[in-house]
């Protein structure tokens, strides 16, 4: 036995085993490398390794996690929380909170989701996740008879910065040092790669309870290089359950079901879905209502959700610069890939039967255990290395609400980029910086991560201050932003925290939408650029007219002012083409006047020169 109480604690090398944790939407697992082999650790008396990601809050303040909590869900539907992963890093009014479910949402400080529970104050998804992590930690400690303090925790590859930050915070709350946030498909590939000692290019199709990821990876000489990733962090097997439950509600004409009815229906739908993975038909029974369900019927109901994964996979292949024919294999991950319709869809999409020889429920946890071992076991360090990518582009808001991308999606992490900004006005002492994540051209269509202000810029003429903003994304995919004024070195550093809950079905939709809206975006961007240009031209013309009234005849002036008014009017409209045309006309008309202004300025300059020479 190792890791006893008498061992001296070295803060740099905490004692005890390191584990890999798959913190799933439906089930969570903990695994570790035992005698050189990644193994899932039992979490119940029967030796099962799946801990249901369900937490029950009792009126006396006690908390139950796992199978016991799931049993209590029927009697206490709103104080028993399932699938909270869907709400990680989300705001109070996120689209996710409007889906069918028995949650009772609470208000509170800051824009995060909170659930009303018995026996205490409302809890956030971070706290609920921490309960699950704590339960896993305790099970592992009982198994090893030793303290477990370090873990690799997996996240969907498509999680944005706010969702990753929330997961890391949950680990911290549970008393775990999170050695690495590891992307789930990458973890799965690691489990397969080591098993087979293979080389080649693989696609990982990961459809879990609440999230979908696809990653394209290349394995060469022990280096796993993620080429591209894509996904939808609000799509999974839960949607299949809801689709079935909604059909049942409609059939019974239940428009306003009680939370208990919703919980019962969702549970029955899940059981039916699982039965239909092996049977052609099953009976769904809720509150004495028996419904015969055929597999073909249910496949029709869930088809729209399965099909949503198609464009995401095609985009990932394209981003990797590959076609399906270039792949050496397709790996299935996640419980929802047990559904035969999903398997058929994947086979058709990639033109080959997928690999599923490692249990799709366990493969992510096994890979996480391997990574935990690689990170801490000096003897294994030369074996394998993972090179992962950032899933969504990062950018800054620029003039006119246009998002300028500084780090493109699918860039290998860690990475960094910087951009120099300048002041627009004399003696301007602050610059506001808005950090966004997403693929769309306009800031309004991206997810806002944080706003911060660089202050204390020494007063200088407009354009003289030069502020360098640097984005750093570390190997966990977490972003930090720093900024400094180059001539004085005035610095401010922030770590991006999920500061606001957002109107973001868009977040997951962003990449999909950017395909649909690509054309619209370009036009919108052109319009914004035209407007900025129009304002500059108008300001310039007004200034010259004011300073040189004697250089323009009255008729010429009134004509010019009429066209200026027209430019002003069009700049507040949406017709980029008309605006461009009218600006061209203004340019023509102003030319003779501006030439006279220019001549005067030159004459003055020359005169000044000769005076000095005298």
């Amino acid at each position, binding site marked *: 036995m190792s890791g006893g109480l008498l061992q001296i604690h070295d803060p740099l090398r905490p004692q005890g085993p390191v584990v890999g944790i798959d913190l799933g939407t439906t089930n969570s697992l903990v695994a570790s490398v035992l005698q050189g082999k990644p193994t899932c650790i039992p979490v119940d008396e029967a030796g099962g390794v799946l801990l249901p990601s369900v937490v029950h809050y009792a009126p006396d303040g006690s908390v139950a996690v796992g199978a016991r909590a799931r049993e209590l869900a029927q009697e206490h539907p709103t104080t028993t929380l399932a699938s909270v992963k869907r709400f990680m890093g989300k705001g109070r009014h996120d689209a996710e909170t409007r889906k069918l479910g028995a949650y009772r949402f609470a208000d509170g400080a800051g824009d995060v989701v909170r659930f009303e529970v018995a026996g205490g104050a409302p809890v956030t998804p971070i706290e609920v996740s921490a309960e699950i992590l704590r339960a896993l930690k305790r099970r592992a400690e009982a198994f090893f008879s030793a303290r477990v303090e370090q873990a690799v925790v997996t996240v969907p590859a498509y999680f944005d910065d706010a969702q990753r930050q929330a997961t890391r915070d949950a680990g911290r709350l549970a008393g775990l040092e999170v050695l*690495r946030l590891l992307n789930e498909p990458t973890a799965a590939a690691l489990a397969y790669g080591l098993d087979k000692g293979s080389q080649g290019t693989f696609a990982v199709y990961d459809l879990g309870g609440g999230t979908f990821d696809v990653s394209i990876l290349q394995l060469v000489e022990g280096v796993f290089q993620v080429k591209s990733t894509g996904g939808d962090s609000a799509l999974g097997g839960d949607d299949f359950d809801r689709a079935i439950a909604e059909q049942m509600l409609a059939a019974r004409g239940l428009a306003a079901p009680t939370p208990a009815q919703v919980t019962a229906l969702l549970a029955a739908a899940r059981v039916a879905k699982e039965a239909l993975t092996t049977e052609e038909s099953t009976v769904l029974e809720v509150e004495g209502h028996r419904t015969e369900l055929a597999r073909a019927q249910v496949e029709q109901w869930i088809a729209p959700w399965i099909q949503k994964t198609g464009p995401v996979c095609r985009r990932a292949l394209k981003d990797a610069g590959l076609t399906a024919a270039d792949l050496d294999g397709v790996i299935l991950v996640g419980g929802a890939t047990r559904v035969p319709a999903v398997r058929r869809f994947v086979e058709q999409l990639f033109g080959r039967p997928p690999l599923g020889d490692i249990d799709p429920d366990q493969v992510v946890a096994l890979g996480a255990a391997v*990574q935990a071992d690689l*990170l801490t076991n000096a003897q294994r360090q030369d074996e394998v290395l993972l090179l992962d990518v950032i899933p969504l582009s990062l950018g800054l808001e620029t003039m006119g609400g246009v998002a300028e991308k500084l780090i493109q999606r699918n860039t*290998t992490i860690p990475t960094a980029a910087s951009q120099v900004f300048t002041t627009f006005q004399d003696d301007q002492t602050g610059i506001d910086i808005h950090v966004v994540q997403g693929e769309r051209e306009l800031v309004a269509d991206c997810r806002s991560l944080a706003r911060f202000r660089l202050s204390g810029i020494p007063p200088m003429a407009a354009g003289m201050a030069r502020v360098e903003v640097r984005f750093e994304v570390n190997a966990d995919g977490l972003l930090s932003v720093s900024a400094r004024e180059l001539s004085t070195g005035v610095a401010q550093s922030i770590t991006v925290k999920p500061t606001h809950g957002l109107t973001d079905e868009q977040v997951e939709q962003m990449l999909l939408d950017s395909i649909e809206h*690509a054309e619209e975006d*370009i036009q919108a961007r052109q319009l914004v650029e035209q407007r900025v240009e129009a304002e500059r031209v108008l300001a310039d013309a007004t200034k010259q007219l004011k300073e040189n009234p004697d250089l323009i005849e009255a008729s010429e002036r009134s004509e010019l002012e009429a066209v200026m008014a027209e430019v002003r009017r069009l700049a507040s409209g949406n017709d980029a083409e008309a605006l461009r045309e009218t600006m061209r006309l203004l340019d023509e008309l102003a030319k003779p006047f501006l030439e006279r202004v220019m001549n005067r300025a030159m004459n003055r300059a020359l005169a000044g020169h000769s005076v000095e020479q005298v």
Partner: protein
Amino acid sequence: MECWNCQSELTAAPVVCPRCGKVQPVPPGATLFDALGLAPSVEVDLPAVERTYRERSLLVHPDRFATAQARERRFALEQTTLLNDAYRTLRDRAARAFYLLKLHGQDLTREDAGAQRAMPHAFLEEVMALREALDAHRTARALEPARAMSEDVGRRRTAALEEAERALGELLRGGGQASALDAASQALARVRYFTRFLEEVEAMEEALAE
């Protein structure tokens, strides 16, 4: 220069100290070519770049230092960040050319810089005409003629890139400094315009495919 850990004298700025094996900080002014152990050049040996990238990643990646002290972890992060940037930039022919130009003091990749590069009037008119034609195809949702334009512009882009590479090659050999720099800059500014155009056609194709 000496190793921050064992103080042994270091020559040629190694990534890790040959004596104690600790990761060293990125030396000031290190270029992307330095990160991959290459001399600045227009052409690179791509298989060699892949190999060096893997080898150096295995040496300096933060995963190798998960339990190391904070200072060494920071150096590993810096080294890997530079290495990743080098790999991404130098593998791509156009990105490499833009980077070489940047090493000669002209950064055309920044959003605000390209617009400042004064372009010959004839070229601007050419681009304007291309854009107007593409706008017409977009309005008509006519994909085939847009694709034909894309192929033609792709050829013009390659030609401009080759021209830039010749000028950059001359610069690197130490010949015709000012004129070669100007020729490279002009040619790459054209590449930038053409690339934008190709991206627009691609966006249009995706929009129409939906």
